[in-house]
């Protein structure tokens, strides 16, 4: 942190929605198709074509609004933002300007250095995406309009963040929420979650904001952090050298880790917003809002709290399990079948997430279902197998998809709980290790672990460790 300047950051995030069809026409939103194959008169901006609003987009906007503590406007309108660009087929973008669907929201973020803090969300509005420009050769560019008219939410924050870390914390939380809600796939590489950052600096204590630069082309959290940090240093240098920061758009150049002024776009914009006469005002009733609210999933922050309060999990466990909706749902499914949350947490965080990471799979692809995992945990709990054998069982289930009982049966992994059988192994172990027995009896009680290990080894892991322990104690003290 610079001692002389305060950093001020506001973020504009474009969230691409996971609807099947585009916002104003029935073309598919699927990614990676043949250029211009997913277009129609509406999204090509052909003469005479008219937009019709996809209801699902409104639902998703309401969801995002509710999840970010925003007020949902009872009446909102679509506006045209007029400018010429080859990837913008109609020469205007249908967006919202005055009267967006959501306003006055907030998110609480937490950073290690600064603790908890509330970041304001100015507005969330619906709009259509532009197409893609492919830079063909030195004379021409190619236009692919498959992405044109794809639904976006633009989430505009207040300039409330004071460091790149805060910006990242905010973005990660927003990312987590929209993915949790199922309104966005969160894929930053494919551009499903894109961020522009408005960055300025001002001397500490100054009330008015400094001149800001708008940073674009930030397609990973890492780049966002790097770009902001670079830009802050750049602005400090400019000011320290007696210069003035210019209000401009700057592109982040990831290869060189710098931001660069976008030349050629300097011409002052005048977007000439006005209400789109082709689209009717949108009215969202309280009934509609309540209905969407009732279908809202529990959000990560609420889960985090509930896992600690209801399940008694440590904050760390609760954080890991609630971070991803699918993981949380998996975990909750296991708990519903085996009501020892901490044991479930240990297994999900340890075995399950570990194995998934190793094999580069997502939780939806996990061959060990919550039912299968709960099956293992029950057999540990009723002493059929030991925790150690359980790991063998887990690996078998992963490969075969069979349930725990089948595998225990087939492989003969049932724990030995017959005290006679264990007693005889214990006797053998004592007989085979006279030196250690003498040491133990001489007061070196730490050796109990050694004896248990020997018993477990002799029983191929099947002896009940508790019983082995008990019997050993008894025999050794005789």
């Amino acid at each position, binding site marked *: 942190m610079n001692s002389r300047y305060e950093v001020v950051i506001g973020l504009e995030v474009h969230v691409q929605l996971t609807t099947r069809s585009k916002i104003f026409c029935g073309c598919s939103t699927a990614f990676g198709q043949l250029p211009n194959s997913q277009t129609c008169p509406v999204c090509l901006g052909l*003469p*005479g074509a*008219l937009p*019709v609003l996809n209801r699902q987009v409104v639902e998703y906007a309401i969801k995002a609004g509710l999840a970010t503590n925003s007020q949902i406007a009872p009446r909102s309108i679509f506006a045209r933002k*007029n400018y010429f660009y080859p990837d913008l*087929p*109609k020469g205007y973008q249908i967006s919202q300007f005055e009267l967006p669907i959501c306003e006055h929201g907030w998110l609480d973020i937490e950073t290690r250095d600064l603790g908890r803090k509330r970041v304001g969300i100015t507005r969330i509005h619906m709009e259509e995406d532009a197409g893609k420009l492919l830079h063909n050769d030195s004379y021409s560019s190619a236009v692919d309009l498959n992405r044109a008219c794809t639904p976006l939410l633009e989430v505009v924050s207040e300039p409330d963040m004071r460091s790149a870390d805060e910006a990242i914390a905010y973005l990660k939380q927003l990312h987590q929420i929209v993915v949790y809600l199922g309104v966005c796939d969160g894929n930053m590489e494919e551009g499903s979650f894109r961020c522009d950052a408005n960055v300025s600096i001002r001397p500490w204590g100054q009330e008015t904001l400094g001149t800001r630069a708008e940073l674009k082309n930030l397609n990973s959290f890492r780049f966002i952090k790097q770009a902001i940090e670079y830009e802050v240093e750049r602005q400090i240098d400019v000011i320290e050298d007696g210069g003035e920061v210019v209000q401009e758009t700057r592109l982040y150049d990831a290869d060189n880790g710098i931001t660069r002024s976008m030349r050629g776009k300097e011409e002052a914009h005048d977007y000439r917003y006005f209400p789109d006469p082709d689209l009717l005002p949108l009215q969202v009733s309280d009934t509609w809002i309540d209905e969407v609210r009732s279908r809202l999933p529990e959000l990560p922050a609420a889960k985090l709290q509930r896992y600690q309060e209801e399940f008694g999990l440590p904050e760390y466990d609760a954080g890991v399990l609630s971070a991803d909706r699918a993981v949380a749902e998996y975990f909750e499914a296991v708990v519903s079948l085996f009501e020892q949350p901490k044991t479930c947490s240990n297994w999900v965080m340890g075995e399950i997430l570990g194995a998934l990471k190793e094999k580069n799979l997502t939780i939806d692809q996990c061959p060990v279902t919550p039912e299968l995992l709960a099956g293992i945990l029950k057999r540990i709990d009723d002493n059929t197998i030991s925790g150690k054998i359980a790991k063998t069982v887990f690996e078998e289930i992963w490969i075969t998809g069979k349930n725990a009982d089948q595998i225990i049966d087939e492989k003969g992994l049932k724990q030995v709980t017959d005290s006679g059988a264990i007693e005889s192994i214990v006797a053998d172990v004592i007989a085979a290790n006279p030196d250690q027995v003498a040491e133990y009896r001489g007061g070196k009680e730490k050796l109990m672990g050694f004896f248990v290990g020997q018993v477990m080894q002799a029983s191929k892991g099947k002896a009940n460790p508790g019983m082995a322990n008990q019997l050993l104690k008894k025999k050794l003290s005789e």
Partner: protein
Amino acid sequence: MSFSNISISQLRRQLLKGEITAIALTRSCLERIKATDAQLNAFITLCEEQAMTAAAVADQQLANGQGGLLTGIPVAVKDIFNTRDVRTTCGSKILANYVSPYDATAVTRLQDEGAILVGKLNMDEFAMGSSNENSAAGAVHNPWDLSRVPGGSSGGSAAAVAAGQVVAALGTDTGGSIRQPASHCGVVGLKPTYGRVSRYGVIAYASSLDQVGPVTRSVEDCALMLSAIAGYDPADSTSVDCPVPDYMDNLNAGVGGKKIGLPKEYFVAGLDPEVKLAVEATVETYRRMGAEIVEVSLPHTDYAVASYYLIATAEASSNLARYDGVRFGVREDDGSGLIGMYQQTRSKGFGDEVKRRIMLGTYALSSGYYDAYYLKAQKVRTLIRQDFLNAFDRVDLLLTPVAPTPAFKIGALMNDPLHMYLSDIFTIPVNLAGTCAMSLPCGLSREGLPIGVQLIGRPFAEADILQAAYAYEQASDWKERTPPLR
């Protein structure tokens, strides 16, 4: 064969009885077009081959006793309607080569009812004009006097129907573009209520004002055409989902007991004396037929043209941004880069009037002027609509002139855009209010030029207009007069 004085209903009966065939009817239309269009220039594109194929299909259907409201009836549409695989130019050089991949809903509906599309009609470029002189395809001539304009922007539609080139046509009306040419050409033209007919596939001029409507020789034909095209279209968010009555029903209900209002602001200085006389005579006819005539006031009439030219041009400036030479249309590129390509394409592709309106509209929306011009105009629009709603609390219909004068000479107003704009003073308020209105022939001037009267109805009360118009038509013989065109 001449059919220029035969109604669609009569033609339908003859077609069904086999007295005539769709092929013969279509061929005779095409012949009439070929014989007269060198003088009129009403058509931009003829689709002879498609028309003859469609006529053969229609004859088949008629022989099998099938078909819709318009099976076998040759029609044409203003070149503002997208027609799949038939060139759609909108009267502009910028779309000179444009072949649409889709049909406008109104065209689909006509074809679903069996109508035969014989061609695309001339118009003012992008529907901007009141004289049909602003067309890349050249001016249209009035069939009653070839030295005069037919009115605009649907000048081709009105001229073609008046000259018997087709039985009926579709036009669009943003500030009078159906009614004013209908008046100048002595035919019936209806601008339905905004939202009554789908705008999908109709090239937009001013989206909150544009509306599709029929141009016909008679009121009955108008009712039939409206029945074919009216109704909700899920592809047009602004089309209204309310029931469409059968407009042919009760056409002869008469006007007994109806209250007709005469807005005093429409009968003022500047109105041509012959127009005034013809309209007053129409009023007398209605009085005789049992209508009650009352004077009403639409106090904001004088502000309508100003409000209209700000709103319409603002919307147009945005609607016409898509003509950028990227995806369709004629591109002009001098190799100076992207912005150069845009500027060349648009400057060479658009005509003067279109450029003028784009400029005015861009200005009205631009930073610092939005509130003073665009927003102000929208507020005044509210006042104008309220004038009409207030009047309709008292009366069933309003009766006014359509245009201050009969058709003027070609070239007379070309260098005075403001004067040209002011000639739409009686038609523009209806578009701003969003309601429906018809132009109905009501006289001929001493020079033999048609004069029209405007009947304005409550929103979605097209049936009221049609009944009143039908009553007048029965009581007069203007329908029988045809232009002296050979």
